């Protein structure tokens, strides 16, 4: 949890200096402090309960689920079973869709990082006419909603034979990930000390070498933030995949979505399925929260 302190927890000192306060105000403060703790604990539980509900539901047999609430496991823990998970992982539709999710997410992340870094470097350190205008043009695309592109790209992919392919989905995610990637990396690369680049240049490094050996390694933190951001974004996407995939190429989100229509009698598929789809994002989140948070911040405030 040490990483935590550096990221989410960096917001401020845990307490402020309180000097020269009257006894009365200190008592009020003590009481207030207790109240604050109680409120935070209640809110924290409130925030946790929905997720715990899903986890517990995924660990109960369907016949238990129809009769009583998931919270009854706390009095009758014998209900817990991993049967639903076992059944789910024997279902080829689900396992295929998990594989598809990986096949979509990993390339879409790598492509955005590489292509975004190339462009970000060019915008930061190369001279060409209209450079800043081009950059502004790219950044202005940050707010374009993906919905705008669904119909035109569906048609375009149809003509190119990309509709329903994993490659098509990867392309779409790459395109819509680029404005943020270029924005983030250009700003980060622009902060690289000029001397470093000049020194490498004097050593005879070519353009590509300079990019691969100096700029990319120095850009590590920004690249990590971007990579995690894009990874989670693509992994969690449902809309784009819903439009552009067909039955063999669906990622897990779309596969589960088709089950939601019969909500109620298939909770034994939905609950473990949703939980499996959350495991990787949560692992990434807890392992790299510092980078994740700084990616979020880079997007909004600085």
């Amino acid at each position: 949890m040490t990483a935590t302190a550096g990221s989410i927890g960096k917001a401020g000192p845990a307490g402020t200096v309180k000097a020269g306060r009257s006894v009365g105000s200190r008592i009020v403060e003590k009481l207030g402090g207790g109240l604050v703790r109680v409120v935070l604990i209640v809110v924290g539980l409130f925030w946790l309960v929905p997720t715990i509900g899903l986890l517990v539901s995924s660990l109960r047999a369907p016949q238990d689920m129809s009769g009583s609430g998931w919270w009854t496991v706390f009095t009758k823990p014998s209900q817990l079973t991993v049967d639903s998970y076992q059944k789910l992982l024997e279902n080829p539709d689900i396992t295929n869709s998990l594989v598809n999710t990986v096949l979509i997410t990993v390339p879409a992340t790598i492509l955005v990082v590489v292509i975004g870094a190339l462009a970000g470097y060019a915008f930061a350190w190369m001279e060409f006419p209209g450079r800043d205008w081009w950059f502004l043009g790219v950044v202005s695309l940050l707010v374009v909603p993906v919905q705008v592109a669904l119909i035109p790209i569906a048609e375009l992919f149809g003509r190119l034979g990309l509709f329903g392919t994993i490659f098509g989905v990867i392309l779409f995610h790459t395109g819509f990930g680029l404005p943020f990637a270029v924005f983030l990396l250009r700003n980060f690369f622009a902060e690289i000390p000029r001397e470093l680049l000049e020194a490498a240049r004097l050593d005879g490094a070519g353009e590509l070498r300079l990019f691969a050996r100096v700029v990319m390694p120095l850009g590590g933190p920004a690249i990590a933030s971007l990579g995690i951001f894009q990874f989670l974004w693509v992994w969690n996407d449902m809309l784009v995949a819903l439009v552009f995939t067909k039955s063999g190429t669906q990622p897990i989100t779309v596969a589960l979505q088709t089950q939601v229509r019969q909500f109620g009698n298939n909770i034994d598929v939905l609950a473990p399925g949703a939980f499996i789809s959350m495991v990787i994002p949560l692992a990434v989140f807890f392992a790299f929260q510092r980078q994740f948070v700084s990616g979020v911040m880079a997007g909004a405030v600085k």
Partner: protein
Amino acid sequence: MASAAAAGAPPGPAAPRSRRSVTGTRRTVAALFLLPALVLLGALVVYPIGYSLVRSFSNASGDGFAGIDNYKTLFTDDGIRTALKNNVLWVVFAPTVSTALGLVFAVLTERVRWGTAFKLVVFMPMAISMLAAGIIFRLVYDQDPDKGVANAVWVGVHDTFAQSSAFPKAHPGRDSPLRPDRGGFVTEAAVHAGQPVFLPLVGVAPDQLPDGVRKAVAAKPEPGKVTGTTWQDFTRGKGVGRLGAPDPSEVGYAGMRIEAVKDGTVVASTKASADGTFTLPAAADGARLRLPASNFREPYNGVDWLGPALVTPSIIGAYVWMWAGFAMVLIAAGLAGVPRELLEAARVDGASEWQVFRKVTVPLLAPVLAVVVVTLMINVLKVFDLVFIIAPGSSQDDANVLALELYRKGFAEGQPGIASAISVFLLLLVIPVMLFNIRRLRREVRR
């Protein structure tokens, strides 16, 4: 989530030094570095904008000019009107509630040592998909209080304050002295003091009987008073036994309300004790006994969270659950930049904590709050998954939003012209932010 960048705050402070090319780049090299990004952006983002614009003025099949018909539909079609109305609700409430909660959490966690753990919990939903969040909240909002935690809590609170009735399915059996009356039951004949009355019913499942029921006892006659028994004239596995008289295995209807009615007015009333016996004063002599409807009302079943009336607020609740953490983290970062001395100075001047918060902290955070609200507003315009997943088929029309309607029109109903008009409309809504981004960045970039 890329929309986090949407409000497009300033980039890092541009380097004061000139960023002239160190490499003496040839333009062709620059072009090669940029080419992949520009081609993809052109084909996948810019081209669709132009195409949507053209498409929005074409008819459904795309081969004829439709003028502004598609845009007219936008404001006349009932489905789209509902979507617009809901979008207004979303844009007004989701960002403000998320930001307000984020602000409160950020300020409160500053004073607690384990604030970081709290932040982690609240921020975590940001990492999961809207699909997963949707499934999570379908479970939370389940109508059945034995499945949905929201209704379980709600019903629990409700039943603490309002006693729910205990015998929803009870009804007279064979040869009963009772007949139906205004949702309850009433005796056919008048009752008289000193002659015990039997009010047998059947049909309450054993596990539904109230706690503390006891074996039914035949009431003893009492001079000057009307006595009687009301009980379940049936035992599972044993049947009715002696019809119209309590058997040893049968239980009393503890708490059943009994009214004595004369000429339509209630002259006396009481409740049955645990063994089902009851006693009414002499006033009840000659009256007929009624078991009023309140005894048989269906138990309170909670709120229909996903019904037509509440579905949009409920889904907004799920959104707030996901995004309050985002607001909290950004605001906490802003809070860290607020000079402590200012707050201390205000406190030393005698300001209460509330005044410090209201008059110092909030104004200093105003720019951050604005960025968070605007970012969330843009994000909210694009909400699709949550509505698509949480709203059950029966109330999806009532929960409709523009992004969902666009998907339906474009991919389910074969109306790409109208869908394109919706997408252009969405784009128009974010253009002010786009311009704001450009203006802000231009100052930074041009050094």
